[in-house]
């Protein structure tokens, strides 16, 4: 189906954004690399840290499946998905997706698709810990709605 294996990493450690983007530039046919990075932002009560839990095993499977769907749908030459778990302080990087293609449209669209799917289909859960206590972050209806725009051609 594709001639590359998506790079899927689930880790507690931070990652090197520049090195990851550069790795996707390899190859004479790559004309465009799109990267998205998600970071821990502060909240009104003053965030101490974000706790991210995941389902080891299923997480890697779900991310690989989503990446394979993207690879089947757009002419890509590379996909990287990195998602961290554990305790992350405000400002820390949570995750990144990056896509490489000959042209920018495919790279942008595939990156957007990957983000929409991993938000509500990859088994991660966020908890915000502030001085006032700890609260699990609720899923947003808008995240579920975002999937609808990809369903018209059926994947």
């Amino acid at each position, binding site marked *: 189906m594709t001639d590359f294996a998506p790079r899927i990493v689930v880790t507690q450690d931070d990652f090197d954004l520049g090195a990851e983007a550069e790795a996707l530039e390899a190859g004479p046919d790559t004309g465009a690399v799109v990267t998205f990075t*998600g970071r821990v932002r502060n909240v009104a009560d003053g965030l101490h840290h974000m706790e991210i*839990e995941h*389902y080891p095993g299923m997480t890697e499977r*779900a991310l690989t499946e989503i990446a394979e769907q993207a690879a089947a749908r757009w002419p890509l030459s590379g996909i990287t998905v990195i998602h961290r778990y554990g305790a992350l302080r405000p400002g820390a990087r949570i995750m990144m997706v990056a896509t490489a293609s000959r042209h920018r449209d495919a790279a942008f669209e595939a990156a957007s698709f990957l983000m929409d799917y*991993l938000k*509500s289909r*990859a*088994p991660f859960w966020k*908890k915000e810990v502030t001085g006032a206590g700890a609260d699990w972050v*609720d899923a947003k209806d808008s995240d579920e709605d975002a999937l609808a725009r990809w369903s018209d051609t059926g994947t």
Partner: protein
Amino acid sequence: MTLQVLYFAWLRERIGLGRELVETNATTIADLVEELRAREDRYAAAFADMTTVRAALDQELVPLETPLGSAREVAFFPPMTGG
């Protein structure tokens, strides 16, 4: 049959454990939830509102009505909040 049952996020916190082996005769995930609910209050509390519970069968997201079949692992968790 014996199933490995996993709980994540606030379901794990309400039930007070992350995984356990469950001996069950349930035929669907929903039946298994009924059995668990009847066990103790903490299960009843965790499964009080099933609109906020999702399930995976052998690490595949599935509807609650799904038959258990020959699955080995069932997981319960709230809607996912990755990214």
